[in-house]
């Protein structure tokens, strides 16, 4: 369980008299901390304990995911990819193409406060924790997940901070491909532009893997990811149950695992979870009180270990019944609609799937996001929305106004929270979350 620096004895050059001191320092082997003692491992461990121990009667099938995070985040187990490993910094990179050409994707978006602090040196003081943590993880001696050497990093050109992070990742020695994403979603020109970008991406992967994209391997890749999407949809369906039978903290963890877990093993684990939830549903096994306020989560994505806000909501007696975030729902909800099973047509359909339903605030207009939120509130019979914006994430901060207005017009209460990865505002946040849940309960009592 030692870090990567512990490979064999360091080679010490013959000391010259002047640098004897320096040589002595160099000769003393720098013993890296056992992985379990590192800050990032302890941070992960603490959050994981909260996720598991603060709640009674977690589904048995969640054990797989709890253990997976223990192995990878707390013990530093390496991820063994099939073929070359391609890091992605956003959900807009079509993973089907990566799988088709025999490589493995790993999503690099990071949720660790420890890496956030390391990454802070690359960014202006008020910038997004997620981008800082991702950069911090990539430069850390002990990155988690243990990705090892990345053969390529694909960086979709989304928000300014992620765009500019591209050059920094290059400076760190990574091969970075900028996947060009348009600023406008609706126009035909942007659709064509994006389809061209996706084809260029396919070409880039071919260079890395030396494999051609064929009708056969793309179709097989689509089948694999569609199995995941299907499993996710079933899981999502169980969250409609009232009283709730499945908590949001576990839902976030399941999709967070998709970032780095083996695709097929992940599908099996979710299918097992679905089987168990079916039984729980039939036996009316509750995960929360009948009157627990039902919350839809939106905004900046919760990524393990930063599940601070969802955990605060559920520890205060609410339930996150659905979400509109790129670390959960947006990642797996939409499926590819293929018209013609020919390579070029399939790639275009794939491109459409990634552009059209996307509700990321980086686009100029975002009516889809408002519609989506109203739809989720209705479908999951939610009582309110919690909107998280990472301090420094301008696009989410800016979109707050229009979302608040729409929700107000529809009589849906919203709690807007500006926060980051640091734990120091937990006390204040818990007051706000509790007051919000109390006001929802009062509102519900009044209605009856």
């Amino acid at each position: 369980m030692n870090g990567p620096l512990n490979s064999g004895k360091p080679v010490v050059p013959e000391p010259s008299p002047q640098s004897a001191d320096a040589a002595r320092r160099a000769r003393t082997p720098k013993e890296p901390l056992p992985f379990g003692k590192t800050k990032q491992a302890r941070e992960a461990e603490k959050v994981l304990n909260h996720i598991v121990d603060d709640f009674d009667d977690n589904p048995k099938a969640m054990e797989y995911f709890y253990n997976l995070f223990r192995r990878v985040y707390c013990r530093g187990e390496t991820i063994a990819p099939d073929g070359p490993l391609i890091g992605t910094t956003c959900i807009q990179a079509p993973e089907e193409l990566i799988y088709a050409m025999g490589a493995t994707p790993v999503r690099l978006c990071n949720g660790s406060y420890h890496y956030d602090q390391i990454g802070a040196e690359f960014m202006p003081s008020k910038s997004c924790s997620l981008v800082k943590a991702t950069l911090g993880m990539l430069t850390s001696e002990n990155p988690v997940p243990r990705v090892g050497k990345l053969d390529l990093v694909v960086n979709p050109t989304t928000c300014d901070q992620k765009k500019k992070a591209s050059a920094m990742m290059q400076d760190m020695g990574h091969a970075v491909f900028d996947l060009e994403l348009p600023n406008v979603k609706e126009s035909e020109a942007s659709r064509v532009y994006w389809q061209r970008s996706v084809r260029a991406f396919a070409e880039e992967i071919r260079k890395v893997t030396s494999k051609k994209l064929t009708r056969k391997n793309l179709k097989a890749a689509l089948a694999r990811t569609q199995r995941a999407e299907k499993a996710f949809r079933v899981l999502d369906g169980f969250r409609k149950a009232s009283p709730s039978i499945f908590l949001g903290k576990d839902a976030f963890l399941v999709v967070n695992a998709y970032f780095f877990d083996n695709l097929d093993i992940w599908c099996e684990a979710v299918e097992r979870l679905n089987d168990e939830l079916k039984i729980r549903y039939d036996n009316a096994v509750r995960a929360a009180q009948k009157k627990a306020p039902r919350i839809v989560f939106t905004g900046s994505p919760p990524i393990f270990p930063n599940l601070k806000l969802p955990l605060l909501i559920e520890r205060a007696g609410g339930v996150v019944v659905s979400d509109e975030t790129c670390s959960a729902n947006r990642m797996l909800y939409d499926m590819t609609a293929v018209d013609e099973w020919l390579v070029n047509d399939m790639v275009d359909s794939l491109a459409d799937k990634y552009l059209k339903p996307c509700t990321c605030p980086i686009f100029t207009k975002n009516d889809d996001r408002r519609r989506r939120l109203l739809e989720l509130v209705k479908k999951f019979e939610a009582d309110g929305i919690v909107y998280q914006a990472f301090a420094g994430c301008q696009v989410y901060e800016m979109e707050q106004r229009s979302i608040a207005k729409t929700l107000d017009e529809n009589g849906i209460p919203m709690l807007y929270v500006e926060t980051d990865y640091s734990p120091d505002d937990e006390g204040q946040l818990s007051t706000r979350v509790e007051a919000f849940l109390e006001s929802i309960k009062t509102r519900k009592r009044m209605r009856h």
Partner: protein
Amino acid sequence: MNYFAGLDIGSTAIKVVFVDENGKLAGEHVTATGSLFYKNAKEAFETLLTKMALQREQVRYLIATGYGRKLFKDADDSISEITANGIGAHEAGRAFGGVGTIINIGGQDSKAIRIDSHGGVTNFVMNDKCAAGTGRFLDVAARNLEIGLEELGDYHFKAVAGPLDINSTCTVFAESEIIGLLANGHGKGEIISGIHNSIAKRTVRLAKKVGLDDRVYFDGGPALNKGLVAAIEEELGRELVVPEHPQTTTAFGAAILARSEFLAESAERRAEKVEAQAQAALVEAAKSASCGPQCGSGACGAHAG
């Protein structure tokens, strides 16, 4: 007589309020939080008991609120200070014709709350992770100027040359700005009114986010500061409703809630008792019906009584 208690354990002060059976304010006590807040909270509660010559049993229900609410295990229940503040201001605001917007400045945060006609919270905002515009800000300023916290209000009205601009919104930077102004020979009155204006600006911006009602209620310790009240009124362009005891509104709300919780629970217990009796009567009736018309003798014993 039964009493109900609200205990507000804030970052700076602990506030205890008792209300009587009619929900009227019966007594209150305020003390510093210090570092041993469980001990201090318990002491504050007991002090008020002694002051009012009450037995512990006479306080039938206790609700804790404020930052320390979770750790005070002697309470029957706890509630967030935002909900408690809403209820307290709603109740105290009746005398002023009802209030719809609340501005609260506490020791380490400031909030604006919007309530409906029943005192239920419909919207609220809080300052984010920063002491600017809170009671702590005033505390720091008073210390820099070497005057007591309670003197700030008087100094506000002593400004001859008009308030100075305090541009820093950060407490730490404002501190150095104040020192700079003092070094340049500016008067304390001008500096203090400048500080009050700067807090007023932030606070009103916060209040506008939840929406301004015709009557805006201002509570929390800093509402005792007449200078700050004047500055906020000027910024708002209207008069504020400042209660007689601005520091204890939240504790008062918790006490009001303690009373209604107690009544609701008693009603529930009564209803359960009535239901149990009805159930027993039903069993009796069933028994008597089961022996049928052919019985008539009364020998089965079911007809007795």
